[in-house]
């Protein structure tokens, strides 16, 4: 039970803290400034007053751009789920008409082609952008320098100003909900301790994130500095929240993303067992890395750059497709980052929940060995 609670806390509290941290940071900062009775020189106050509306507009534009990027990638990532769900009923017809091994193999191959075609574009686009960013500093130092200067003088202050504007809207609503915590902000030491305490947890979580293979594979000093400074703006975290909301609005509780999962053998037992208990016999297709990254696709990834191909080899993607009669009832994509994680959709929220719970139990069973 305690393991379940700690896992829940780690997963959701960390995300909540990362989302709220920029707002708490600026609220504490302004409180500390107020308590120390510091007031900036007049010309600084005047400059801030003049520039604030401009930077608010820049912040709104930056946010809109991030949302647009998120929508493009979400649309591309949703592709495999939609095309498999839509096409399986047609693809499975031959097999239902004349069940045979060759018909099953043909079905598996067709679905494989569909999965590769549906995910290839988004995968190559994402890897291309990330690899380009990584190599930008060494390949185009001048352009990178100017891009960094433009980002830190125009876009980043805009993001900060927008974060402070959002704080202005949220603070009156959130204040009554803070209860006794409010009194911490009445003294300088209280506000300081609160800020230090939350900063420690926020940056510990960020450090863990930056150590992930996906981050290490594509990071350079500019990317890392941006990631650290973005902790003081709410925009990136808001975009992640919107992305989760978008997937939730499309699939509801039938979809769970980034679920820690065990090895493919244990996972296969979990999936087959759960589908069997629900619908009796069903067909489960398992796709290994070599099938999801066929030779032409892998060649295209290699052409992007060595970091992209090394990273994809590390990811070892795999997938399960569950078919009951003529319907696709399960799509699960598995890949390795810091640990193995799975994005799973099933036809029913209850089945998704059962599979996720069984996965958690399987992970807990090997916790005593350490990581």
């Amino acid at each position, binding site marked *: 039970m305690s393991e379940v609670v700690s896992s829940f806390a780690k997963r959701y509290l960390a995300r909540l803290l990362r989302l709220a941290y920029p707002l708490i940071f600026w609220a504490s900062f302004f409180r500390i400034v107020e308590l120390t009775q510091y007031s900036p020189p007049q010309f600084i106050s005047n400059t801030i007053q003049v520039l604030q509306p401009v930077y608010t507009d820049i912040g709104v534009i930056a946010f809109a751009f991030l949302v647009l990027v998120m929508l493009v990638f979400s649309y591309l990532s949703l592709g495999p789920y939609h095309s498999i769900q839509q096409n399986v009923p047609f693809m499975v017809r031959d097999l239902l008409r004349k069940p045979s091994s060759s018909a099953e*193999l043909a079905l598996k191959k067709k679905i494989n082609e569909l999965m590769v075609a549906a995910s290839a574009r988004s995968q190559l686009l994402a890897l291309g952008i990330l690899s380009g960013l990584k190599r930008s500093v060494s390949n185009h130092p001048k352009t990178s320098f100017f891009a960094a200067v433009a980002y830190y003088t125009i876009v980043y202050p805009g993001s900060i100003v927008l974060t402070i504007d959002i704080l202005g809207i949220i603070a009156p609503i959130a204040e009554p909900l803070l209860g006794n915590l409010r009194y911490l902000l009445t003294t300088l030491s209280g506000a300081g301790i609160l800020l230090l305490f939350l900063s420690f947890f926020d940056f510990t979580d960020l450090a863990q994130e930056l150590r992930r293979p996906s981050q290490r594979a594509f990071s350079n000093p500019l990317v890392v500095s941006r990631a650290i400074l973005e902790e003081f703006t709410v925009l990136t975290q808001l975009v992640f929240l919107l992305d989760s909301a978008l997937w939730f609005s499309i699939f509801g509780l039938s979809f769970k993303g980034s679920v820690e999962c065990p*090895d493919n053998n244990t996972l296969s*037992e979990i999936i087959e067992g759960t589908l069997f208990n629900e619908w009796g*016999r069903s067909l489960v*297709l398992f796709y*290994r890395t070599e099938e999801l990254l066929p030779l032409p696709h892998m060649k295209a990834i290699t052409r992007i750059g060595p970091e992209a191909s090394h990273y994809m080899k590390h990811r070892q993607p795999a997938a399960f497709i569950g078919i009951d009669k003529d319907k696709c009832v399960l799509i699960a994509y598995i890949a390795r980052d810091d640990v193995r994680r799975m994005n799973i959709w099933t036809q029913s929220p209850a089945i998704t929940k059962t599979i996720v719970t069984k996965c958690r139990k399987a992970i807990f069973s090997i916790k*005593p060995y350490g*990581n």
Partner: protein
Amino acid sequence: MLGNLDELLSEPEPSLVILDETYDSERSVKERIEKDLRQFAFSTWDSREDTHKEEMAIALQSLVFLTAQDISRRASELKDIVHLRREHIEKAIEDATNALLRHPIESVELLDNWKSAAKRFLISELQNESKREAIFRTCERLKIDTADFAKIFPELPK
């Protein structure tokens, strides 16, 4: 004939796997091992503890699934393709039953051999991977689940 684990593990992992309505067959493997194979395998094990019996059941399951995969691979006309069907699992169970009927004493050796091959595989994985990933790869290669792994290896080998 029930395969030797080293030989079975020397075969490359198939690139294509279809699990064709095998879940109830897999369940029946577990049931058959509980009911039938135990009688032969454990007849020589009366003096041993229950944990050894449990380990034996896991080793037999692993060997049955790996043998079934081997049968499927041999039956397939296409290279590297495993289309695991109920009959492959049933044939592997039959082979296991016959092997244990013919050589009941060898079941003691069978577990020791299986455990040492599994340990060798795990140690080699631990040298290159994190503990968690090494455990997962061992489970995948031996066709066992994480609960079985915990029973076979209460501690990780050094």
